[in-house]
């Protein structure tokens, strides 16, 4: 049962092969069995069963959506009313949100059952889940390896089938990189597709929520729930949202897929390159035309990102001051002392590092050289994509340069950690949709993902390519041996 797709589970519920309560209990049990993975910060055991009962009642009355009664895990960055919402930080370790994020509201309205809140890098700042205040998540494929980050808990939960689907967020690769490391499908939609209201901000001009699933088909179904205009988010776009499942099975015959040469240069591990090559062959077999494209400025995406994201973060995280919610230092003297201690004790090492990087980049005398320069470079990077999409319909490449690395191997070297997102960051800077699909295993037996980047609002095409690929391959159905 736990290996079923959303469509299959929905059908099973509809045909009363299983109730939502039973299904929810099944996943709750799996979460308990796999507690060691540390994929969840909060398990919503009691309330999930109550939600499942309500979903069963709703189904019996015929008022159903595809997701009614389907269990789901939410990244702990989404505010959930009445439930702990920690963002992986000591700062919010006691924060019970008084409201629901728009994404949460949408899933609640659809009748989905919240299994719990998944572990993540603190304030989504990390690529390994090791910056979480609640300890790292282990990669279900190999417990010595990181699951990737920042949505590492969601990735591990879906990979280990502790939840059929999960939500994630992606600022520089935080959906796609852990999806690749854990052998699942993850899509970051175009900026503005999914409401950011109630999604705790890391870097507001880059953050975007999205699905983390077994397959492109499940992702399409989740996107149908998640996407849409939200009047509470001024950056939410009032664009028509297609039924993402409608075009999944379309032929990709003649579709032009661009290969940016910059994504295949030095730094790309041979085993990852081998997997990408195999994907290229599969796609050719499906009738796609492969063309070479150039993204010359994307090689500078990491430096650009590590100015813009920390700059926005330094401001976004100023609200955590111990005055209105969250952590406040125990012993303090005057007001300044309360601020300094609250923030020093409430934030972890990497979060403080990024706050300081961003503070510096925005400070008097450095703004032009860092922040403004990065904003200009951002435009060059975005323009590269516009040009590339004149000759292709989607861009293909590796999601990450390597497979999942070992826990602890990069914690002392922030720059090495940052370079992990070299292929994922450009799509965030340009605001474009990007998807990672599982495509093979590396020499170390750890999963490899390939990335597809599309034009603005062209998620449907990425899902179409992903789905066609998954119809002729089996990588998305592979699960870690000990989970079978």
């Amino acid at each position, binding site marked *: 049962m736990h290996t079923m797709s959303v469509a299959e589970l929905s059908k099973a519920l509809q045909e009363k092969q299983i109730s939502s309560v039973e299904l929810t209990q099944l996943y709750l049990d799996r979460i308990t069995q796999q507690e060691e993975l540390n994929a969840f910060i909060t398990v919503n055991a009691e309330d999930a069963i109550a939600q499942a009962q309500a979903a069963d009642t709703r189904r019996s009355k015929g008022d159903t959506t595809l997701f009614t009664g389907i269990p789901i895990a939410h990244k702990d960055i989404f505010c959930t009313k009445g439930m702990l919402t920690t963002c992986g930080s000591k700062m919010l370790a006691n924060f*019970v949100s008084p409201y629901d994020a728009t994404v949460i509201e949408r899933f609640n309205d659809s009748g989905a059952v919240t299994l719990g809140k998944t572990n993540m890098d603190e304030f989504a700042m990390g690529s390994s889940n090791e910056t979480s205040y609640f300890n790292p998540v282990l990669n279900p494929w190999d417990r010595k390896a990181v699951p990737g980050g920042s949505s590492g808990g969601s990735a591990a939960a879906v990979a280990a089938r502790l939840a059929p689907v999960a939500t994630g967020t992606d600022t520089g690769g935080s959906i796609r990189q852990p999806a690749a490391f854990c052998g699942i499908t993850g899509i970051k939609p175009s900026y503005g597709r999914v409401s950011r209201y109630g999604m705790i901000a890391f870097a507001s001009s*880059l953050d975007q929520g999205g699905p983390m699933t077994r397959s492109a088909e499940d992702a399409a179904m989740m996107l149908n729930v998640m996407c849409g205009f939200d009047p509470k988010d001024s950056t939410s776009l009032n664009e028509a949202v297609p039924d993402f499942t409608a075009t999944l099975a379309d032929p990709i015959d003649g579709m032009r897929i661009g290969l940016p040469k910059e994504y295949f240069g030095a730094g790309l591990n041979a085993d990852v390159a081998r997997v990408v090559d195999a994907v290229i062959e599969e796609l050719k077999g499906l009738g796609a035309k492969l063309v070479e494209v150039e993204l010359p400025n994307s090689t500078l995406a990491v430096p650009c990102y590590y100015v813009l994201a920390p700059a926005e973060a330094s401001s976004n995280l100023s609200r955590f001051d111990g005055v209105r919610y969250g952590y406040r230092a125990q012993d303090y003297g005057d007001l300044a002392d309360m601020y300094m201690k609250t923030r*020093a004790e409430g934030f972890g*090492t990497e979060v403080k590092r990024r706050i300081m990087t961003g*503070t510096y980049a925005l400070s008097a005398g450095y703004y032009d050289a860092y922040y403004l320069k990065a904003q*200009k470079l951002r435009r060059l990077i975005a323009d590269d994509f516009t040009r590339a999409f004149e000759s292709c319909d989607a861009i293909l490449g590796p999601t990450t340069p390597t497979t999942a690395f070992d826990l602890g191997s990069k914690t002392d070297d922030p720059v090495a950690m940052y370079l992990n997102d070299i292929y994922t960051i450009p799509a965030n800077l*340009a605001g474009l949709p990007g998807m990672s699909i599982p495509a093979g295993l590396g020499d170390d037996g750890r999963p490899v993902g390939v990335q597809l980047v599309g034009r603005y609002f062209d998620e449907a095409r990425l899902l179409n390519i992903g789905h066609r690929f998954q119809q002729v391959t089996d990588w998305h159905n592979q699960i870690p041996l000990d989970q079978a």
Partner: protein
Amino acid sequence: MSLSRQDVEKIAELARLKLTDDEIADYTQTLSRILSLVEQMNAADTNDVEPMAHPQDTRLRFRDDAATAPDRRDALQAIAPKTEAGLYLVPKVVE
């Protein structure tokens, strides 16, 4: 660019972070390395490039002027570290 201890102390003060001596030493080193990474940006010629602040070229959307928010002080203050008489309490603010 390499940062000095004093630079880091100043940044930490601006960001309201109380750092230990060891932390200052560590951040002095890692922040300098991050700045070296960041300065690779200088390889790009960005003269006459319009800065990009938003990933989409959109305009601000307006909301009608209606005061519809309910009073939910009790719910909001239930999660506050310290309140009294409906106020958030902080150490004495000196004007």
